[in-house]
């Protein structure tokens, strides 16, 4: 008895995802008919070669990036909430995104200041991804070490915020010593952007995303025992330290790689897990992980479509859109449901 089935929800979500993917690809300053888009996606030639280029080299990579970023950040958020047993946890709140920013700042701005090797690395997409993941991991590790000492989750969140502030301050110092061109490059990165990724960079992104997901499949059981607290988890035979480290590494990787390629994107990591938990009404990670991944992709695609400002040639910074759309949704959900869970 009572093994709930979620097939219906997953089919609906997948359908919505495909629809949004098409909507995202069809929206932009150049109007392309939907049958042409499908033809191009299926590998047929289009009547206009410029359409072909627009779809395959601009819109499709962007839509894929949106999906990877959305689901990556959402999964990272879910992992943080379960690990810290706190609904407020998320890559941003714990300063992990700031850590990733610091990694990128050191690379982009530091290249100007220190020159040499950094300049070479900063041009490679792997370099950006690694620097940003390292930055994320360092802050996460610092939060975790202090978390081990204080244990009180409220203190942990405040400590996370403090680490975030410190990294922002370090970035400010870097900015102060950098020249205008580098600063501009960094500021634009900070607005967040889903475009501008080459297929090569998307491949790097996808490989890291895939490794993370495959590793996560092995920690679904430990994640579920964490719902009972560490002592119960341990008494169920779970090696707390090992699994916590795996979860932390995955979180840093996912946060690091998304931040490297798309800039620091707010809100998604905190909100999507909550929206998912409200929709699916479960805490089982076997259900939550795929659900969060799909819903995260859907929500970022919606944000992307909105950011295009349909029928206009402007594009809003994605970072602004995620917060503008997302925050009201979360507030509305919370006011309606009144209760929030990890």
């Amino acid at each position, binding site marked *: *008895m009572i093994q709930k089935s979620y097939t219906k929800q997953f089919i609906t979500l997948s359908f919505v995802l495909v629809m949004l993917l098409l909507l995202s690809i069809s929206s932009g300053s150049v109007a392309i008919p939907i049958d042409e888009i499908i033809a191009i996606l299926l590998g047929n030639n289009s009547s206009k070669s410029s359409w072909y280029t627009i779809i395959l080299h601009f819109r499709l990579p962007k839509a894929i990036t949106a999906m990877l970023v959305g689901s990556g950040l959402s999964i990272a958020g879910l992992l943080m909430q379960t690990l810290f047993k706190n609904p407020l946890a998320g890559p941003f709140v714990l300063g992990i995104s700031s850590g990733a920013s610091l990694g990128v700042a050191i690379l982009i701005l530091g290249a100007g200041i220190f020159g040499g090797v950094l300049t070479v690395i900063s041009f490679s997409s792997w370099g950006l991804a690694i620097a940003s993941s390292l930055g994320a991991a360092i802050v996460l590790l610092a939060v975790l070490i202090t978390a081990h000492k204080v244990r009180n989750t409220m203190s942990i969140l405040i400590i996370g915020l403090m680490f975030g502030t410190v990294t922002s301050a370090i970035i400010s110092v870097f900015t102060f010593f950098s020249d205008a061109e580098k600063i501009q490059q960094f500021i634009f990165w900070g607005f967040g952007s889903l475009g501008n990724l080459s297929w090569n960079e998307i491949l790097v992104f996808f490989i890291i995303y895939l490794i993370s997901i495959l590793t996560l499949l092995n920690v*679904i059981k430990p994640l579920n*025992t964490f719902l009972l*607290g560490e002592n119960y988890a*341990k008494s169920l*035979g*779970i090696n707390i330290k090992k699994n916590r480290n795996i979860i932390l590494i995955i979180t840093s990787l996912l946060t690091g790689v998304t931040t490297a390629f798309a800039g620091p994107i707010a809100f998604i990591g905190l909100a999507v897990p909550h929206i998912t938990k409200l929709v699916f009404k479960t805490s089982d990670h076997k259900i939550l992980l795929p659900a969060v991944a799909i819903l995260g992709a859907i929500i970022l695609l919606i944000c992307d479509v909105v950011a295009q400002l349909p029928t206009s040639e402007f594009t809003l910074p994605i970072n602004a859109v995620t917060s503008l759309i997302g925050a009201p949704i979360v507030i509305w959900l919370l006011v309606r449901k009144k209760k929030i*869970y990890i």
Partner: protein
Amino acid sequence: MSSSVTNSIETKMLHIGYQQKKSVSTIQKNISIQLHKGDFVGILGKNGIGKSTLLRTLSGVQDAISGEVFIEGENIQSYSLKELSSLISLVLTERLPESQLSVYELVALGRQPYTNWIGKLEKKDTEKINWALEQTETMSLANRHFNELSDGQLQRVLIARALAQDTQIILLDEPTAHLDMHHTIKIFKLLKKLSKETNKTIIITTHEVNLAINSADQFILLTDKEVIAGNKKTLIESNSFDHLFSSEIINFNTNLEQFIVTKES
């Protein structure tokens, strides 16, 4: 050797307490006890005397300062966490994090040591879960979220989770801490019944001394001076219950076999 195999739990010269880097604070010394299958055991003592510490040390969650704990005849150190999880289950006092787990899912987590890599429940697992829910009379709660339950219901659900874990030993830390008299007695009766019907070793820490004296088979008394173990008869004969609390406030009455409040003269 053969005698130690029949003991479910045995300790030899066990020192319990907390260790942090160089500083060691020992709470109780020289604990040597033997507990058997089917025993319902009460760990009694005043606040801060080390009941929970002893329970955690017996469960392997906390390390002993010195001395040895034997589970089913083998030193607890020789088991892996995974092996221990099919020998000992826990019911703790700590509040569960606020998740959306249903009662059924919570009890099902007890099957984790036996399920495959993704936690799929096989027929044997669901049978055990249903049995645990029936034993604890929580079947009707199965679809509810655990955080909607009353304290008494939640306690029975947590016991069901421990039962689903299918271990020889169940350790419970103050299982009646937040319960009224009715639910407290209900839990005591349930644990007593389970120890007899399933032949499990069930060990609880409790402040319900009078209830425990009337239902437990064995006692571990933690006093300021020493740790004494035995059954009711031997402990009464040796006047050991007298040392549990300060006699100015509470006295043990041997005729009633109950603790009573000392009348002010």
